[in-house]
């Protein structure tokens, strides 16, 4: 029997599912090895669980989504978070819970009854077996994780940082040019695509294991201020414990002094 696979999405842009479709022939090869029993974006067939593998894209923002997430956790052996919205809180996480009601009023008017609660990663509610980071996910990583799951392996993230791949790509180190970059503390796997494209690294692949955050901050603070640094950290990493530690605590100390 082929493993029963289901793909679900919560509030998000669906770009990681588009990345999945962009695998083209490879996607068919992969989906041939499983039975896709539920995938709203692609098919009408929508079987109930139990499932062997559930892939979830997006951030659970509404109570209904949070309930569905908990329900799906009970229905599946393996649960994979697809993309930074699911794995980190990512872009939706830029909005703080306390600020939501202000923006509901501003955007939807005072009579509107909001449904959203907060934008947190899946791990805020359930145990996740593997987090496939990225905004969007990298196609090669997508294939690797898929293949490892299919042979029953527990996939692991890259142990090296974006710097390793950035070096291989032949880019000049942005820090040397006194430009902020989160590459040194960010998990590799993206191929340093943003830096190669002329941008910087905002850390959408999540923090690598044993990330030397303090060392990086020491370097960055030589040429930049905390407001600018916070902007970088708050793009994809705002809902991580590290963000809370670095910025909320600094703010407190600043407030006292």
């Amino acid at each position: 029997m082929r493993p029963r696979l289901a793909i679900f999405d919560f509030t998000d842009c669906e770009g990681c599912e588009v990345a999945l479709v962009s695998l083209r022939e490879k996607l068919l090869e992969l989906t041939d090895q499983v039975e896709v029993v539920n995938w709203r974006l692609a098919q009408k067939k929508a079987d109930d669980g139990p499932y062997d593998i559930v892939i979830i894209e997006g951030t659970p923002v509404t109570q209904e989504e949070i309930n569905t997430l908990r329900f799906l956790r009970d229905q599946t052996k393996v649960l994979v978070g697809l993309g930074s919205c699911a794995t980190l809180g990512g872009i939706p996480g830029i909005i703080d819970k306390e600020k939501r009601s202000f923006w509901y009023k501003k955007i939807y008017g005072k009579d509107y009854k909001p449904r959203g609660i907060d934008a947190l990663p899946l791990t805020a509610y359930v145990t996740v077996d593997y987090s496939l980071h990225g905004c969007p996910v990298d196609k090669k990583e997508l294939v690797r994780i898929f293949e490892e799951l299919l042979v029953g392996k527990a996939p692991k993230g890259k142990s090296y940082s974006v710097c390793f791949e950035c070096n291989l790509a032949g880019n000049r180190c942005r820090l040397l040019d006194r430009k902020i970059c989160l590459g040194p503390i960010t998990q590799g796997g993206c191929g340093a695509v943003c830096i190669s494209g002329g941008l910087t690294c905002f850390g959408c692949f999540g923090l690598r294991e044993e990330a030397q955050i303090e060392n990086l901050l020491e370097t960055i603070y030589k040429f930049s201020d905390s407001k600018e640094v916070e902007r970088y950290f708050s793009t994809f990493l705002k809902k991580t414990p590290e963000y809370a530690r670095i910025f909320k605590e600094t703010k407190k100390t600043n407030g006292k002094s």
Partner: protein
Amino acid sequence: MEKAEFITKIEGHGSLHFNWGKNKVWLEVAEGERLFEGMVVGRPAEDLYWITPRICGVCPIAHNLAAIKAVEDALNIKPGKSTILLRKLLLDAQMIQSHTLHLYFLAAPDYLGLDSGLEIIKTHPVYFQQALELKRISDLLADKIGGRGIHPMATAAGGFRKVPSIETLKMLKKEAVKMLLAAQGTFNLFSSLVYPEVSVNLNLFSLTNGKTYDVYDAKYISSNKKLKVRSENYQDIIEEKIKDYSTAKFGYHKKKGMMVGSLARLNLQGNLLKGEAKKLFKEALVDFKNPYHNNLAQAIETYHFAAEANEILDILIQTGIDSEATSLPKDLKPGKNSVGVGALEAPRGGLYYEVRLNTKGLITRCNIVTPTVQNLSSIEETAQIVLDQNRGQSKERIQDLLEMLVRAYDPCITCSVH
């Protein structure tokens, strides 16, 4: 507990609800509120076009470019010729990416009697090869010009952070030429399908420049009811309404539903098509009162955008990309508080960005109106008409017809809740 049931094969979470006794249908949108217009406030201008493409993974390039246009408008930055050509090429790629995904993966199964777009490989391998070819090459174009297939990073206010080399442009041209055959095949397929019949007095809107079939250079909002207004006055034309059953706003014009996207563009600019695309348009006999024909319109457009991509590549190869394209402004700070509007045609229709910047270059206000916000009103109205015109049919048949109708509009619910 049960999982919610949403319409399948559309982007995002929407569902049709019926009151069969009263013969009423309405469209609920259940995506969580995303608050992008709040998210960017307090952040620097360049974050606008980095963050807001995440509104939509299907049309991120359209969001990226509309946001850039708004920032440029606020700062009075005038991009050079090469930059505009590269952006138009990128937007062509976006259109083909999005139309191909929708036509083959989401819409075609309805007409070929399949459950999933993935099944086409077995049932219709030739069509499937066409889809793969269009997807592969449009992704490649987006990748080489924008830096990545989804969520571009090479684009910026004033130009590009990186531009492709002449060798890359030549390679792209060799590939892009193959899209024409696949696009012709796509037209053959979608002009051979039997679309459900319905006759609706649609209010069609498109951004136009009046001279060419253009999706980037959006000077006016035009309608099939003889409207022509400058695009920066979009708020006079589109009135957004809040509904208690939807986390997306519904856009109306003078209290009536608006349809935007391929069918509307063909209606308002179709006579400006050139060459083969013009022939296909003439041949297709598009019915502008039948929203199901939006699929046919997308197929015609796919050919047009493929042809335009080839033309632009020819020009770029011949003239080269001037260095102006990569000389970006030093900072994005206006001399005084400034407002900018950026508009363009996204795959699903008119997309509007308005941004206010303070002298530090920080965003103090942002307003975004997406195509699907406009289409939701028309979808709901047309669904009611289809329901009325099909009285006596079984509930299952009506539900199928209405789901197909929603799909034909190619709604992007994720965009509508932004």
